[in-house]
């Protein structure tokens, strides 16, 4: 039978969760007084009344603050008191259920068989039914994973999801070899294979040779292996590229090989240990260890269900670290998001999209949940706000790991067993899959398990703990994660050279009734596949059992060169591995790059787009500081545990009040060593709207200079690329992508910084007013640097009154794409460029100066230019400053104060230098543009003088800080 237990807070106790929800509802404009939350547990099994009491008293309730009841009384509702109960859809994972079962068994109650949870919200306030519905949809639940329990008083007869027994089944054969072109495309479409006609024909030809039709799971396997996601057809295929519609066509054979990989090949850095082919790029760290780094996107899932999307995005990239070499240990996370501004009016959103505020809240919570629970510090990140991301937000999740030398090599041997570890397999992530779940409402219920999932970080932490123990014992020969494509991708990749034989019915399932192809392509989270020499299997299974992690032998890498799948003894697939991996026909895509037509937008009433010489720029500085892209992200950083593992050295927030925005983050690789790792990111979509080539160079420059700013060295920096673009089958989208990749090549070679890994997410388009719109082409450059001595790190906060302020690097007439112009409603014409030769010279000089201990504080000039950098340094240090803008090294024609202060020219820093170091500094910076521009002041005034020595900015640092902190508080 099923017991229903309700837990709520004792009367008079504060309900912070309810209060927080109430604030969200009031934010929507509804006049409610309060919200109280009740946790509901449905317990199924042979459990006596006495046992339920014990479960309530000793497990479900905190006796100090909570009370419970299990005698169901219907909550009284009235016009002032509304009750909404929300539960997960059947098949959606709720980790609390498994923990509750464990907790009940620990009490000695063996009769428990299943647990389900729900949450009941009591909303106090006068609301119409329609208003309540709107609150439910917008605050309380996401219908993709949850539903409103229509009648909480109706207790179901069983909680288990039942399905037809799967042992009796028919193998589905697809009529392929006799199909015409139209039929082939139909097969592709109806099977959601996303294969084009050339690819379908190649498959047809192959099976004609085999003289048989394929099974459904064979087609699914090919579609998954050949998918854009797994195969990067755009980056690895042929592109016919032209500049301008009439430009001479240029044939690019693999954009990846000719740009990104070409950098690494050309630079031949000895410390690049493993690049591009594994789940993450690996570089040397110290005499015993290497480090690896990977950044992934999780855009589409995050748009649909922000919490779950970002949550599983973080989980996925951590599994990349766990699946690199023979498993690396995750050290830190970095997460970067692109959203529409949080103040976007609802009317401006494309239909069917979630409000950016909700997307942001969900994404940030999803990252918090996974990172914090796994105990991996989120040390660095960025958020870009731009209205073009309203229909398609971007979520990048990155992870750095530590791996002992020698463990970076994996090799599957013939005869190794295929072992799946971690979470169970369900229908998660199977496109369009719907399944009947039956008994919960005693009607069959259609469940969209589709693309939306929620992660279980504790499961992944358990996998990590067990895995690292098994690695130390040398018990397996290779490992990879189950990401997109599930077992199909993991086993298919690992068995490419050996072949594989898999018994699909050996995979532990979340619930009965999965079909064989569903097991094979399911994307259930927290699973890894390893290859284990048979003599080690017993020891390996023991380790996983001791950590309460399921491990199951699915089959064998059998040396057949074929991929053979069985289900309850019957063969369902038998494919040639070489066709699967090499049979994809070469595709040629068209690309045209057209320089964007830019113009100065006419001024809006009341906004001065024209600069008047000598004008006061205090207001411009305030607007720049309060721009969402510049404003403090403290409210987000503080909910991420950025200090777990104890490794952080330069934290995301620094300065006298621990609230200044630092540049790169610095962590130790190991607690007992001074050697460290710096991590940073460069991203700026508005530069790309003007010039994608320049955007790539600027982003690389930004990522590198942030590492230089904390004391890093240009000699030991590696890069990651992440391209998020629109549909590459459209020549204009692909044209700008090519330009951007070319910019990556040019800049990375010039800086001597190899790419070690990367990713692309294409087809980022959304529909508005019947038109398909692409997101602005976005490149994220992530950088990792090795730091010799973390004790020499430099932070950005001014340290001492009386110290000199220096500007390093030249300012140009480059307001294009700047925050300053955006605040004036303009994009601008000239985005920042990079003078590579001078940039390298500058970075080497800065490195010598930081190593010599000459620099008291250092901050890079990025969004908001020199003015924002100076203001941030001042208020982070709790000190004022006097600055002469005319002293800034400048090359340009316009000679305007606003350009000097707000241009976002690359390769620049502001430095603080204490008295007595000037001479040594001048020597190091010989031939590098640098000038003393002011003094750090004890008084809290921030004063900048203009070209004619008149004050153009005059403000108190506490006011500036408040203006900077308020927007995203």
């Amino acid at each position, binding site marked *: 039978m099923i017991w229903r237990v309700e837990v709520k807070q004792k009367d008079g106790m504060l309900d912070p969760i309810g209060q927080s929800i109430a604030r969200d509802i009031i934010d929507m404009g509804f006049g409610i007084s309060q919200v109280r939350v009740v946790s509901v547990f449905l317990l199924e099994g042979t459990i006596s009344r006495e046992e339920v009491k014990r479960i309530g008293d000793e497990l479900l309730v*905190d006796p100090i603050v909570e009370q419970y009841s299990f005698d169901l009384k219907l909550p009284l509702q009235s016009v002032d008191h509304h009750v909404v109960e929300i539960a997960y859809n059947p098949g959606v994972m709720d980790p609390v259920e498994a923990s509750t079962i464990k907790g009940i068994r620990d009490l000695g109650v063996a009769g428990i068989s299943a647990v389900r949870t729900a949450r009941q919200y009591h909303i106090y306030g006068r609301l119409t039914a329609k208003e309540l519905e709107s609150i439910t949809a917008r605050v309380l639940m996401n219908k993709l994973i949850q539903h409103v329990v229509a009648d909480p008083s109706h207790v179901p007869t069983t909680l288990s999801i039942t399905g037809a027994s799967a042992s009796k089944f028919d193998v589905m054969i697809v009529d392929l070899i006799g199909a015409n072109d139209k039929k082939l495309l139909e097969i592709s479409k109806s099977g959601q294979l996303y294969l084009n006609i050339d690819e379908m024909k190649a498959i047809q030809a192959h099976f004609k040779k085999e003289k048989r039709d394929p099974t459904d799971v064979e087609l699914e396997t090919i579609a998954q292996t050949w998918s854009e996601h797994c195969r990067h057809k755009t980056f690895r295929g042929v592109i016919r590229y032209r500049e301008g519609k009439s430009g001479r066509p240029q044939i690019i054979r693999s954009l990846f090989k000719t740009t990104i990989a070409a950098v690494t090949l050309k630079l031949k850095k000895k410390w690049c240990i493993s690049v591009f082919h594994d789940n993450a790029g690996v570089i040397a760290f110290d005499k015993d260890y290497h480090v690896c780094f990977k950044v992934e996107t999780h855009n589409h899932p995050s748009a649909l269900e922000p919490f779950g999307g970002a949550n599983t995005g973080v989980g996925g990239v951590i599994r990349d670290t766990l699946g690199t070499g023979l498993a690396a240990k995750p050290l830190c996370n970095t997460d970067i998001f692109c959203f529409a501004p949080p103040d976007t009016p609802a009317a401006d959103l494309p239909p069917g999209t979630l409000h950016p505020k909700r997307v942001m809240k969900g994404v940030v919570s999803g990252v918090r949940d996974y990172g914090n629970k796994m105990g991996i510090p989120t040390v660095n990140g960025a958020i870009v706000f731009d209205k073009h991301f309203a229909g398609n937000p971007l979520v990048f999740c990155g992870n750095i790991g530590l791996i002992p030398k020698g463990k970076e090599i994996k090799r599957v041997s013939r005869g190794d067993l295929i072992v799946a570890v971690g979470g169970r397999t369900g229908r998660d992530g199977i496109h369009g899959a719907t399944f009947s779940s039956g008994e919960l409402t005693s009607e069959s219920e259609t469940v969209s398990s589709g693309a939306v999932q929620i992660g279980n970080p504790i499961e992944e*932490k358990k996998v990590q703990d067990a895995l690292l123990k098994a690695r130390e014992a040398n018990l397996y020969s290779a490992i990879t994660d189950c990401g997109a494509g599930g077992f199909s991708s993991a086993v298919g990749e690992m068995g490419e050279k050996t072949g594989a034989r898999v018994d699909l019915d050996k995979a532990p399932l979340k619930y009965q009734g999965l079909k064989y192809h569903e097991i094979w392509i399911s994307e259930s989270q927290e699973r890894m596949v390893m290859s284990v020499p048979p003599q080690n299997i017993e020891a390996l299974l023991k380790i996983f059992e001791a950590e309460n992690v399921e491990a199951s032998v699915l089959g064998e890498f059998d040396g057949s060169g074929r991929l053979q799948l069985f289900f309850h003894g019957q063969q369902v697939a038998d494919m040639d591995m070489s066709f699967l991996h090499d049979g994809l026909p070469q595709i040629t895509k068209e690309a045209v790059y057209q320089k964007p037509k830019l113009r100065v937008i006419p001024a809006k009433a009341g906004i001065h787009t024209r600069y008047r010489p000598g004008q006061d720029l205090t207001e411009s500085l305030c607007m720049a500081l309060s721009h969402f892209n510049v404003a403090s992200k403290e409210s987000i950083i503080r*909910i991420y545990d950025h200090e777990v593992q104890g490794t952080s050295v330069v934290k995301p*927030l620094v300065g006298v009040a*621990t609230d200044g925005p630092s540049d790169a983050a610095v962590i130790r690789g190991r*607690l007992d060593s001074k050697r460290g790792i710096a991590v940073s990111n460069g991203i700026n979509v508005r530069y790309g709207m003007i010039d994608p080539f320049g955007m790539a160079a600027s982003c690389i420059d930004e990522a590198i200079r942030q590492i230089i700013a904390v004391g890093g060295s240009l000699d030991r920096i590696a890069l990651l690329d992440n391209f998020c673009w629109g549909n590459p089958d459209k020549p204009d989208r692909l044209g700008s992508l090519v330009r951007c990749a070319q910019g990556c090549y040019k800049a990375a070679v010039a800086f001597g910084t190899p790419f070690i890994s990367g990713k692309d997410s294409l087809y980022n388009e959304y529909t508005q007013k019947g038109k398909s719109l692409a997101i602005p082409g976005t490149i994220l450059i992530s950088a990792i640097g090795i730091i010799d001595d973390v004790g020499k790190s430099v932070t950005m906060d001014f*340290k001492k009154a009386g110290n000199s302020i220096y500007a390093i690097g030249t300012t140009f007439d480059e307001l294009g794409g700047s925050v300053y112009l955006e605040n004036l409603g303009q994009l601008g014409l000239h985005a920042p460029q990079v003078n590579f030769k001078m940039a390298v010279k500058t970075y080497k000089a800065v490195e010598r100066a930081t190593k010599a201990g000459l620099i008291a504080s250092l901050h890079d000039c990025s969004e908001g230019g020199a003015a924002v950098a100076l203001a941030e340094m001042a208020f982070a240090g709790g000190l004022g400053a006097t600055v002469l803008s005319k002293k800034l090294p400048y090359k340009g024609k316009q000679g305007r104060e606003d350009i000097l202060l707000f241009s976002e020219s690359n390769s620049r820093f502001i430095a603080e230098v204490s008295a007595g170091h000037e001479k040594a500094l001048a020597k190091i910076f010989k031939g590098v543009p640098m000038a003393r521009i002011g003094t750090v002041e004890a008084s809290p005034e921030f004063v900048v003088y203009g070209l004619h020595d008149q004050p153009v900015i005059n403000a108190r640092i506490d006011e500036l800080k408040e203006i900077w902190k308020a927007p995203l508080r």
Partner: protein
Amino acid sequence: MTPNVKVIVIRTAGTNCNEETAFAFSRLGAHVDQVHINALIAGTFKLSDYHILALPGGFSYGDDIASGRILANELRLKLAEEIKQFIRDGKLIIGICNGFQILAKAGILPGLGWKIGQETTLFYNDSAKFEARWVHLKVESRCVWTKGMPGQIYLPVAHGEGKFIPREKKVLDALTSNGQIVLRYCAPDGSKPAYPENPNGSTDDIAGICDTTGRVFGLMPHPERHFLFEQHPYWTRLKKTSDFGDGAKIFENGINYVKENL
């Protein structure tokens, strides 16, 4: 020559501060084993072989149902006798963050009398948010773990459920009069804190308590995260006089106590 100080750091699904906690003890010369709760319950490892039991931070069992609840029940139901004996033998226990939540919910703290029953809890922060920030703490009582510490220290917190609540006023009064309140949140100048100086709304700004022996200590802040000088959030503004940070003294005290008394 005193014997090797032996520390057991307990971990389970979701524990995640075990390595840095182990590092703090071992850096100061102790022998440390990180042991899964399963191995302790199975008897593969024995509590009685150790001098110090440390329950580190993390999200044991995901904080499911409530933080620390499931591991607290495992200790209470499966290891109660061993733990009672451990305390009777004059040995030391420290619970940090999730470890404090576990000690409170298992009733091992505040240990008013020998009855194991829950007298205090750590509930959702008033802000309803996870709070990762640095806090100033007044060292109110000289329990074994805080002997010789300065009057005020600086440590980070990182928790969503850290609001200390006693069952009733009587419990609070007993804690106060017994000198069991070890750490209180305070403003930078030592005065009464406001949010976020008290990051969670704890009753009487309580951040850490000990039992009546002064040997069992639970605290929400993380001393192992201010163990090294460069873990201080603005160490680049400070003159380095030691390799260690404010939290190191706590671990040192534990080790020294064992050396001197056991």
